[in-house]
């Protein structure tokens, strides 16, 4: 599945993450751009986590910007899911 709209969720407050999902060209796959203060300790994990979430949501071609402020996985998941849901609403 591809999305047509852009969806954003989260904030730039400490312990939150601002996630923006937007359409990507067909065949480009899941493109993730992550910035995080804990990139050294958790960067690989967060990338994998977000990519898997997007895949589980059935997304194949999508650009995800994630501006992390030290969010826990449960927060990352909530923000990604909300951003995806919002992108679908806008896609209609």
């Amino acid at each position, binding site marked *: 599945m591809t999305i047509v709209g852009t969806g954003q969720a989260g904030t730039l407050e400490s312990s939150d993450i601002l996630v923006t999902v937007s359409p990507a060209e067909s065949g480009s796959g899941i493109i993730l751009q992550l910035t995080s203060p804990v990139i050294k300790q958790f960067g690989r994990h967060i990338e994998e986590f977000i990519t898997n979430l997007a895949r589980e949501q059935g997304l194949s071609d999508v650009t995800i910007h994630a501006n992390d402020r030290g969010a826990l996985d*449960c927060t990352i998941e909530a923000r990604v899911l909300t951003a995806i849901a919002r992108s679908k609403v806008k896609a209609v």
Partner: protein
Amino acid sequence: MEKLRRAMMFVPGNNPGMLQNAGIYKADTVIFDVEDSVLISEKDAARQLVHNVIKTVKYPCEVAVRINHITTPYGKEDLAVILPAKPDLIRLPKAETAEEIKIIDEIISEAEEKNGFAHGSIKMMAAIETAKGLMKAYEICSASPRMVALALGAEDFLADLKTTRSSHGSELFGARSQIILAARAAGVQAIDTVFTNVNDEEAFIAETTRIKEMGFDGKSVINPRQIKMLYKIFAPTEKEIDLAERVLAAYEEAKAKNSGVIALNGKMIDVPVVTRAERVIGYARALGLRKGGSTND
């Protein structure tokens, strides 16, 4: 022993930092709010976040969620998203009829069944925030066996009453009295409203002392700093604890002997005295004044 709900702390439902730390302040209950503290445009984000933190973070206390009223466009969706995470308690704001409680009760029953939770495991409470709701307070409390508490929400209530908050609190006297009466008649707890000026500690202490005297079981709080002050006011004295321990010992002894009469120092003890003693010991344990751990363990 009855679950203590002295401090019920509101936490804004769209703030991850506050949600993940909410458990450390020793509130008896944390209330994750997706109602007034969340912008309309963020309702979807907040309910998803609250769902996730309840499922992931282990809280050492009761976890409640204040949903939007079910007559708003958000209330039912709040329940649909949040119930599968299994909160301990749902708090309905601006309750006005028994019917609303019954509708939520049914939605919870369905969710419990669907998710394989024990029937009746998710409790309910309601807040009275209008004159109309106050007139139905007893019916609201009695509308469902899930109901464990009735709260006062003073800000909206006073607007409805066409008055404002004062330092002496006489404008809330009627509502508080009726809420206590309704709650006690229905066998649920009574929870007082928030005190919003976090920096006025003196006034907070005065108000909390007053509502404790009136019989309230607890109070909604909006800042962790209020919790310790509140517990100090609800703390029993050493003399009260001693007496309570002796009452309970006498009660146990009577039970062991299968005797219908409970006596302490030659005096008869009524069942309400035993109940009060249990309450005192509950407070004492929660504060670490007596061993045995708090009733929240």
